[in-house]
């Protein structure tokens, strides 16, 4: 499994396309498109980690640019909740981060993804049971 799973709002996906057009290759990261970053709740983040990701990056639109009005605000609250839970169970809350990008800000996205890949490498894998779903 890739070290990092990036859950990206479909409206911010243009930034990833621009990165590809500029021949930027991002390794160690699986990208999952979601309809809105606000859809990513704390359970989804925790499940992604349990299923093998070493870090999770949630990518939302810029504040006030959400087409559903407040999805990225919701996402921030959910990421904060996931961080609190991780801390409570003795895992580093820095395994989860959120970044806001417009579809034109591909370098901001790339930097965030590279930063999370580095961090995942530093933190290492979460011990998992063999065959854990």
């Amino acid at each position: 499994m890739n070290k990092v799973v990036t859950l990206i709002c479909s409206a911010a996906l243009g930034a990833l396309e621009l990165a590809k057009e500029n021949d930027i290759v991002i390794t160690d990261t699986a990208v999952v498109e979601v309809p809105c970053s606000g859809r990513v709740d704390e359970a989804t983040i925790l499940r992604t980690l349990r299923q093998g990701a070493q870090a999770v990056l949630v990518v939302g639109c810029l504040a006030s640019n959400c087409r559903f009005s407040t999805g990225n605000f919701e996402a921030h609250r959910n990421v904060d909740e996931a961080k609190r839970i991780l801390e409570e169970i003795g895992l580093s809350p820095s395994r989860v981060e959120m970044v806001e990008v417009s579809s034109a800000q591909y370098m901001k996205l790339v930097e965030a993804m590279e930063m999370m890949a580095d961090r995942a490498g530093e933190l290492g894998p979460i011990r998992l049971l063999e065959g854990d779903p």
Partner: protein
Amino acid sequence: MIIAERKGLDRIIEMLDGRRSILVAGCRSCVSVCQAGGEREVVALAEALRLHAASKGMDRSIDTVTIERQCEKEWVMEIAPLIEGKDAILSMACGVGAQIMQQAFTDVQVFPGLNTEGMGAPEVQGVYEERCGGCGDCVLHLTGGICPVARCSKSLLNGPCGGSQDGRCEIDPEKPCAWDMIYRSLVRLGRPDLLEINIPPKDWSHSHHGGPRRVVRKRAVLSEEEVA
């Protein structure tokens, strides 16, 4: 509604130590509205426990269910098939729900996942405040619709005390003085004269001081023939 708050995960993990097959059971009533023990919180907590188990290399199975009301045994009995093989139930309901769960499933230990804080209401989204002291002898008609038992830090029936300043409570200046609110509410209602009424000491035997309370609604109690 009943307001509750999830126990710290360290406490929950400690309570469940040694249990291998756990059912996390939520409730769709009060604790769902106050976002402590509804479906979303149950799923998140189960994921947290699974992730914790995985990080520690523990072999532990965790299932989830959220029922309509954990405080009614008819709803609780519906999940009987899910209890089979479990060695622990983590109840994400209020203390009432957790007790009914244990009463229904006597062979499996029930652990409380929440702390029940009291009876209250959402003030704004995500902020819940106590509103009723459950005294069993309501005086809201005399106090402008503001409960002095629950909302005055000293539960004074004839206030304010000498410590109220600028409408704030001396116990915690972050909190409004209930008797200041009562005064303002009675003025708005055109009934400041009600402040002249000296509310006598309460008969606390109607509250918990009289032991566990029991309410019988005769109209609803089935006859022996009907039960048979």
